[in-house]
């Protein structure tokens, strides 16, 4: 009574009429009514401790003589999840039904109870063939040793489908009785493959001589399944298996060669590593390559010294395979050896992840023969702890080492190292070398968060350095964008050295904020040389186009209006058009519209207008301008805007 009340409460909560669910399920046919879904929902919402009541209802459906096939099938599906010992008799009564037998097994195969085994076993002999194959499958899955005798009778069944499933089930059940039966069989040709798999499955359930006998039986044949026999043999008679593997490795059996190499990649056995490394030097180059790759993938460091021995090979393929294997297995102990092979090992050294690799590479920086290769490897490994050691190498006697060290610093150093790098760079006498060194410091600055501090650290040497040094400093000024940087650039603009002054102007033209705008505009208007005037104007337009310059849209728009009459060439007009795309201002739309009327600029203006409209189409304050500009666009360009809105869905799979 209590259970019944609880069920009613669950039904009520699920919005289902409780009394009808199971009756409806008993008369259910696919597609008609909602009984199946209701029952499923009810089960899902019922607490586990109340599943007994549901099981009772489902047993009633399964047992009902007048219940439909679909209703019974769905009841079985649900019992698969919640069925207990008590449902077994009812469900087992379906085992001889050609269709419902499979549904009955949904339940019985997953119930941990000997009663389920007994039920399937007792149904097997008298079940129709179609049901027999399913039942045998379940008995195999459950490894029911009591089934061997009955299943064994069916290996001689006239229907190969039944006989095949019987063989497979025997193999899965395994054990000595099954092995004894399987070992004596001579199956029909069409069942040979199934039979071999059964031998292999059965072998897994055994140890010692009986297992060896089954694996030997398979290995005596020609099937691809011999690989499986070999892996099975490795588990029960390692010595014999390894002997055979070496035999296949050195022999002519193509099929087994690939299989052996796969096992070398996979199988855990110290003796196998020893045997394979022993065979390695004796193999021809082609097979050596295969074994080296496999030993690398195997990951057993015991193979390391044998693999290292192959580095001396004159065969390029062997060398490559050796390096690849060392990439997998190598550790600190192999670093020196790899460095000695030169640049070809850099990739391997990059991938090595063992402890001490970085430290060993850093130590190698003090070895004149190895330092260049070590720098290369440390850079590839992004080893920032190498920076202090690299700083020492920037004064190395060997120019190539100095250059490599600077290159390494360019990749690995951080803004904390800039002051030291600047000091070292500006103390270099050779101007070309100094310029390259400053270039590396610049590279670090480019990645720095505090660009102003970086610039200041380098600019400290402005007064004391040569014009080449000054030029290098100047190129950093634009990204720093500080008043100090601007002062230095302005000062340099007046240099008598025309090249240096040109560098200053280029730096100014690439300024990252609006501070340089006035100077640039002035130069654009007054510069005596056309080239300088153009460069200044371009820099001015560039600043107006910056989205993050701190300028308001109306200021940016005003700058571009100012630039317009100064831009006498189409190239600068196009720059203005490009800059307008991100200016959120009605006047910017008007300017763009005007450019669209110019035949020489129409194409670029229309293209930029599309982007401008896309950028601001959701800005209600610019709705009228957006519409006006859109209307002015040719239809083909309007389609571009539409396409942007409707991005095609990527192929999900």
């Amino acid at each position, binding site marked *: 009574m209590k259970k019944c009340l609880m069920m009613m409460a669950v039904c009520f909560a699920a919005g289902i009429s409780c009394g009808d669910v199971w009756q409806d399920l008993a008369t259910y046919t696919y597609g008609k009514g909602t009984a199946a879904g209701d029952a499923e929902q009810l089960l899902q919402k019922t607490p586990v401790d109340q599943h007994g009541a549901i099981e009772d209802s489902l047993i009633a459906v399964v047992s009902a003589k007048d219940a439909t096939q679909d209703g019974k099938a769905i009841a079985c599906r649900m019992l698969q999840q919640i069925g207990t010992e008590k449902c077994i008799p009812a469900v087992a009564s379906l085992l001889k039904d050609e269709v419902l037998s499979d549904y009955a097994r949904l339940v019985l195969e*997953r119930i941990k109870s000997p009663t389920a085994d007994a039920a399937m076993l007792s149904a097997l002999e008298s079940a129709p063939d179609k049901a027999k194959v399913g039942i045998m*499958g379940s008995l195999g899955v459950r490894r029911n040793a009591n089934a061997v005798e009955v299943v064994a009778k069916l290996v001689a069944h006239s229907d190969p489908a039944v006989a095949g499933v019987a063989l497979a089930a025997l193999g899965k059940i395994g054990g000595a009785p099954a092995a004894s039966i399987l070992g004596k069989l001579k199956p029909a040709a069409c069942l040979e493959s199934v039979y071999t798999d059964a031998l292999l499955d059965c072998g897994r359930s055994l140890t010692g001589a009986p297992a060896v006998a089954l694996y030997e039986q398979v290995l005596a044949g020609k099937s*691809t399944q011999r690989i499986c026999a070999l892996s099975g043999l490795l588990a029960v008679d390692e010595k014999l298996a390894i002997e055979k593997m070496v035999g296949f490795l050195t022999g002519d059996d193509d099929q087994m060669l*690939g299989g052996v190499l796969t096992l070398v990649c996979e199988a855990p056995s110290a003796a196998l590593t020893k045997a394979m490394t022993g065979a390695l030097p004796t193999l021809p180059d082609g097979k050596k390559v295969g074994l080296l790759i496999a030993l690398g993938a195997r990951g057993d460091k015991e193979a390391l010294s044998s693999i290292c021995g192959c580095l001396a090979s004159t065969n*390029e393929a062997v060398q490559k395979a050796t390096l690849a294997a060392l990439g997998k297995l190598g550790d600190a102990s192999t670093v020196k050896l790899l460095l000695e092979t030169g640049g070809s090992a850099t990739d391997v050294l990059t991938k090595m*992840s063992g402890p001490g690799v970085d430290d060993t590479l850093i130590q190698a920086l003090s070895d004149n023969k190895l330092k260049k290769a070590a720098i290369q490897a440390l850079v590839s490994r992004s080893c920032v702890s190498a920076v202090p050691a690299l700083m020492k190498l920037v004064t190395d006697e060997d120019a190539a080492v100095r250059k490599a060290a600077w290159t390494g610093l360019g990749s690995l150093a951080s803004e904390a190292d800039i002051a030291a790098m600047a000091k070292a760079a500006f103390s270099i006498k050779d101007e070309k070398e100094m310029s390259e060194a400053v270039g590396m410091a610049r590279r670090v600055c480019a990645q720095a968060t505090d660009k102003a501090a970086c610039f200041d650290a380098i600019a400290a040497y402005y007064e004391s350095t040569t014009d080449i040094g000054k030029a290098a400093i100047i190129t950093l000024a634009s990204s720093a964008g500080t008043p100090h940087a601007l002062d230095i650039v302005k000062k340099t603009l007046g240099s008598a050295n025309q090249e240096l002054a040109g560098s200053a102007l280029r730096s100014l033209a690439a300024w990252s904020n609006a501070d340089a705008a006035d100077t640039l505009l002035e130069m654009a208007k007054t510069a005596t040389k056309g080239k300088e005037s153009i460069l200044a104007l371009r820099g001015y337009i560039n600043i107006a186009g910056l989205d993050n310059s701190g300028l308001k849209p109306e200021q940016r728009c005003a700058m571009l209006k100012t630039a317009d009459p100064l831009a006498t060439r189409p190239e600068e007009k196009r720059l203005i058009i490009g800059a307008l795309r991100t200016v959120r201002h009605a006047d910017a739309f008007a300017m763009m519209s005007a450019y669209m009327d110019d035949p020489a600029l129409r194409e670029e203006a229309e293209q930029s207008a599309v982007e401008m409209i896309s950028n601001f189409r959701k800005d209600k304050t610019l709705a009228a301008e957006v519409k006006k500009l859109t209307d002015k666009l040719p239809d083909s360009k309007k389609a571009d805007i539409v396409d942007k809105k409707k991005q095609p869905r990527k192929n999900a799979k």
Partner: protein
Amino acid sequence: MKKGDEMKKVNVSRRAFLKVTGAAVALPNIITSSALGANGRPPASERIVMAGIGMGGQGSGDLRQFMGDPRIQVVAVCDVKNQNLERGLSTVNAHYKNKDCKPYVDYREVISRKDIDMVMCATPDHMHAQISIDAMKSGKDVYCEKPLTLTIAEGRKMVDTARRYGRVLSSGSQRVIGDFGALACAARSGKYGNILETYATPGGPPRHCYLPGEPIPPNTINWDLWLGPAPMVPYHPFRCGQAYGLGGQGFRSWYDYSGGMMTDWGGHKFGAVLHGMGLDHTGPTEILPPDGGENQYLTYVFANGMKLHVGGGGPKYICEKGEATPLREFKVPPGLRWYEDGANTPIKDLVNCVISRKRPFQDVEYAHRTATVCHLGNICYSLNRKLKWDPVKEDFIGDPEASRLVDRPRRGPWQI
């Protein structure tokens, strides 16, 4: 041994040599240049001969990628749906400009061919394990589309078969590295500190199908073969439809044939975060259903304390120093698994590994672990209770009902 003798010996087993030495390294002194095919393509006798099983949209696309690799020769296509089969056949024949490709309805005929080295399995999910295991037992290497499996137990059997039979199997999410790899690199770069938790939203679970039976249109489908190990039910075109999503018009909607979008996109997104977290060789220890309170999303908890939340779009990595975003400079951190030997897709990676015999990036074990996370989520959604999982034994702890759902009995005569 004289040089000539060695060459003679090499020529006898040229195909095996190619498989163990070919793509991973160059082949100087092993195969003469005259033995090479046109345009550097290996001659037919040295190509990896393969068949495509499941020639729907994904299968056809995959097969085109395979055919784009000069080391591959496709000789057979197979599908239980006539329309798919014809399309697949014409795709292959058009590619090779001949009519050599053979069509099959029953994959068992394909895998019984001794000349085939590898099969691609791109059928609906419920056939993946069956076909892959049968193929591996027949000595074929396998490319199996994701999701790898329909049940957790199937995956373990696939791993077991691959290892015992010495076969190479790769699953097929191109997105794990292609779309989400850079994020994994960032999360593992050290910049953000240790990973604490991740977010990924694959999509919902499947449901049971109660569609009515309909007559099978003549010459369209072999219904019994399409169902394979799934329970026998009446035909309806939407049961076996190829429509994407959970809209009830394609197989991904239905429990008997698919894990729904949970496994479909889970193969990508869960695969990605498991890879990034370095947990793609194991599994969670707890699965918590969304409870409308503290657990907004279904959540997986791993033994090392990391969490994976099924929500928030993702993949996202929340680390000690904030959410990881891809770094400007792309670099694979040491210890993060990646494609090898120049591969940039799972297909190229598999072809390399078929030759070298190494495990591919999406080796069966990793694919199984990814699929397991998806299945665990579906089971948790279905039972709507906290579950404890043993990732070593691959069984639930103290929940017999949940344990029942680790595997599903197969319709006779299908067994794996």
